[in-house]
């Protein structure tokens, strides 16, 4: 009997729920996420407000939906930026090798030893905070890890038969790199993309929690957590809502990444 792939099933379910929440939140939230109502200050969960209200009486569910959207947007932007630059760097260095490879990889090693969040903090202190700066900072910080993976895959593939055949057929280097090799390394890239996405969610949440990430009026899960921490004793559900949203977002993609890895 074939064993059911629980990782895949659970991962898909959790990710779909989160994506649904985010997509719906983009068009429609149960309440206006900025609308304050002092009567409902720190109201506990009820039928009208399933996740309760925050310290300004704003509906937490609406804010979580919107915040998850921001976090998702930043994470996707980061992964795309890091991945595109990383693929180009990794492809060029892995395929051609030589002195450029040496220099870029030494730089990469130096940066790779550095936790990406610290690197992002350096960039944030240079560019300033805000949604787009966070994407830029984290994106650059993520380049080394992608470049490293892509490079090693290109190194492995460049002497394989199908690449030689393509060379014989007269394909240009550019074509071999991006039309022949790149699709072949997609499975490896896909799972590292998902792991990268998770790291980006984590990094964005941490930075917004510290107050140097996404700035108001944009809402973000990390920012909600730092506001909620003040009311930990009076309104524990306030902390729980954004926290659980982060956990589910990460868990879903982690399970998916794991199921891809297992299949290989």
């Amino acid at each position: 009997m074939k064993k059911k792939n629980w990782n895949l099933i659970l991962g898909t379910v959790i990710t779909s729920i989160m994506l649904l929440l985010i997509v719906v939140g983009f068009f429609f939230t149960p309440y206006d996420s900025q609308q304050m109502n002092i009567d409902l200050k720190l109201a506990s969960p009820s039928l009208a407000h399933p996740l309760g209200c925050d310290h300004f009486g704003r509906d937490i569910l609406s804010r979580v939906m919107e915040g998850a959207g921001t976090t998702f947007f930043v994470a996707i932007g980061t992964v795309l930026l890091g991945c595109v630059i990383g693929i180009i760097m990794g492809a060029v260095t892995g395929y051609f090798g030589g002195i450029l490879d040496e220099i870029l990889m030494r730089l990469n090693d130096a940066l790779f030893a550095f936790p990406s969040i610290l690197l992002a903090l350096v960039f944030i202190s240079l560019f300033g905070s805000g949604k787009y700066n966070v994407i830029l900072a984290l994106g650059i910080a993520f380049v080394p890890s992608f470049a490293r993976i892509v490079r090693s895959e290109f190194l492995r593939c460049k002497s394989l038969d199908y690449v030689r055949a393509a060379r014989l057929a007269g394909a240009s280097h550019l074509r071999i790199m991006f039309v022949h090799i790149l699709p072949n390394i997609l499975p490896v890239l896909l799972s590292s993309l998902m792991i990268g996405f998770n790291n980006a969610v984590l990094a964005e949440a941490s930075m917004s929690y510290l107050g140097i990430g996404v700035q108001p009026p944009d809402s973000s899960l990390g920012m909600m957590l730092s506001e909620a921490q003040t009311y930990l004793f009076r309104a524990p559900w306030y902390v729980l809502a954004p926290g659980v949203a982060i956990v589910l977002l990460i868990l879903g993609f982690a399970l998916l990444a794991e199921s891809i890895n297992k299949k290989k």
Partner: protein
Amino acid sequence: MKAILKKLITMIITLFIVSFLVFLAFSVIPGDPALSKLGTQATPEALEALREEMGLNEPFFTRYFTWIGSFFTGDMGTSYSYGIPVSELIMDKLPITLVLTGIALVIMMVFTVLLGIYAARHEGGIIDRILMVVNQIIMAVPAFFAGIIICFVFGLILKWFTPGAFVSYEKDFGGFVAYLIAPAVAIALPKCAMASKLLRSSLIEQGNMDYIRTAYSRGNTTKGVLYRHALRNAMIPVVTFWAMAYTDMIAGSVVIEQVFGIPGIGRILLTGISNRDYPVVMAIICLLALFIIVANTLVDLIYKWIDPRMRDNG
């Protein structure tokens, strides 16, 4: 011996690259440190004098080497916003971060080995399966959220400690260490989950190898085979992971200090970033990089000690 020397040289080169990149990054940003120190009301003469005094008129490489030279003699420049030497600002905070990550490292190592071995020995059992699920969930919990929950459960409900009541290590070292245990657990938790999962699968993989069967056939007990043969080989990927986890924990401590109200390096770094106090930010980033690079080099050396095969080809 030669391999060790080679490692040390690589380490020094990496240090130079990192410090150079940091210096470069903070030099190319627009903005004049002298102007931001004096304000826009300053006269051009005063500005010029201050620039000369701060050494801003020197060529780039001269400035870099002056900076890196004085960095190693302990002079890290003067903070723009506090007006006191950076070294004074961060030196007494350094032990806090070191002790915090140190405790977290010990917690991670102990629990990785305990849980990993237990799960591998009882592979497929009920506790192994529960551990797997719990690990999977814990891995998805960011350290700072874990910290908030620990604050709530152990601080506010069980009252094992008072969140925010940080004790300075100069006053009461025991109380200081005791307060750091909760945040250390928070940063160690996700790493612990990942590492014990890794050790489990690594041990199981080793268990299927020929040399293990040979060891059994020579009449060794399960325990003997596990601890003397399998564990040593299984630990190799785990040690690599520990090293990476430690660097992550150093970065994580910046965040977790904020959760537990610990006045460590992280807080100064954050105020430095929001005040654009570049000497402070540069010094802290370089110091943390120093830790990380030294830690990585140490791990490489430990590696060679665990795995004799690595000793010759360094």
